[in-house]
């Protein structure tokens, strides 16, 4: 169920008080922005995507089911938008061999002031398939339960678990391969 404050803001918004939606954005924009950023890596694209998610949420607010949590609903939109964005970008990159787009994106990445470790993890994440990346982001960054991830990705809990376990092992192997994570040899005889 949605937190009382979110529900109140949603109702006020549906009654025509636009500022109430501003409060909802203020409350959830950081989460949506970070999900987008971890999914697509680009700071500028994450902003655009956050913007798209909130505008769509506003337009569909009258269809929101009060039995769900608002943040789960908005996560769901953020993840879906991210998946669509990645698919679109893949098509775009396949059509355009020109390196200009990638160069622009590379400079955009530099806008984020993050530690080297964070950048390494982000690089490793980007080597995962988008579906696997989504479960890692939702579990490890957003600390959601299997059940919540299931709702957001529209998957049964069992599938969430198996996908998460696979994604985690793959990410570990990528990080070891790239030298970001040390291969543990302490216990090997």
């Amino acid at each position: 169920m949605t937190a009382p404050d979110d529900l109140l803001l949603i109702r006020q918004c549906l009654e025509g008080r636009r500022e109430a939606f501003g409060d909802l954005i203020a409350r959830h924009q950081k989460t949506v922005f970070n999900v987008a950023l971890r999914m697509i890596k680009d700071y500028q694209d994450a902003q655009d995507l956050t913007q798209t998610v909130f505008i769509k949420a506003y337009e569909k607010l009258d269809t929101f089911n009060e039995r769900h949590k608002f943040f789960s609903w908005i996560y769901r939109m953020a993840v879906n938008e991210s998946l669509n964005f990645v698919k679109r970008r893949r098509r775009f990159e396949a059509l355009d061999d020109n390196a200009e787009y990638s160069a622009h994106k590379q400079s955009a990445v530099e806008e984020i002031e993050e530690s080297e470790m964070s950048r390494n993890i982000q690089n490793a994440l980007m080597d995962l398939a988008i579906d696997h990346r989504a479960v890692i982001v939702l579990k490890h960054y957003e600390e959601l339960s299997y059940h919540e991830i299931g709702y957001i990705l529209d998957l049964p809990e069992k599938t969430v678990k198996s996908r998460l376990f696979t994604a985690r092992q793959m990410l570990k192997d990528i990080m070891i391969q790239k030298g970001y994570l040390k291969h543990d040899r302490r216990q090997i005889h």
Partner: protein
Amino acid sequence: MIADKYIELIHREIDGVNSPQASAGLKAYLAADAEAQRFYNELIAMSGMLKEVKPVEPPAHLQPMIMNMLPPDRYAPRPRRGLLATMREWLETKFNFKYAYVFAGGLTMGIVMYGLLLQTTVQPNDWSKLSGAMIPREEAKNLKTITELEIAATEVSGKIGVKKSAQMVESEVALVAGQPVEMIIGFDEQTMRFQEFQALNETPENLRVTAGTITLRHTGQKNYAIRFAIKSGATGRVEFKILRAEKPLYERTIFITASP
């Protein structure tokens, strides 16, 4: 080769959803299997690294930018709602039901405590427990007998003793009646004020005190003491009537002057 069962347990351990028993079982397995221990250590290290990643702050202009892009007339303002609708919304959204449970619990406790206390407090019609409540003890010592009346009717017998002091009048009534009788004690409200009724052995039935009159139903053998305050130096009237089925059996009026 790590068994699938333990791979799942390792992942669940990382997610913090294993039961204490499952955790203990896993720890024992890891202690005995070097490959599993290595796998677990690597996943734990990676999970720790992911935890270290701090969320990035979105740009400050993001919220106003989104607000500017919202369609202007998507949700038209609705007319103001009444008090009931507002209260209903408040109950549905803001009201925390745990406070209602606490209130209900407190109320129940209060009712139970009140009930328990009530059992030990003086009941309004339990006059036998009122002795000494209102009359100063010193005044009772100064009482002197002024008359003793004999009651010797066909259906009721007994005695009425009347005592007085400077501020007090006391009537002691001892009645014997085989059938229920009604005793009415009238007094002059101008000069006297009822203060106390005391059943000396048994509580009377149906005791009623109204302005200027004390009425009780009597059966068997019982003694009562009725006390009045009297204005110093004034003369007061006390009237004793005993009735059976509204038929007078005994009637006597006495006048008392409070001696200073």
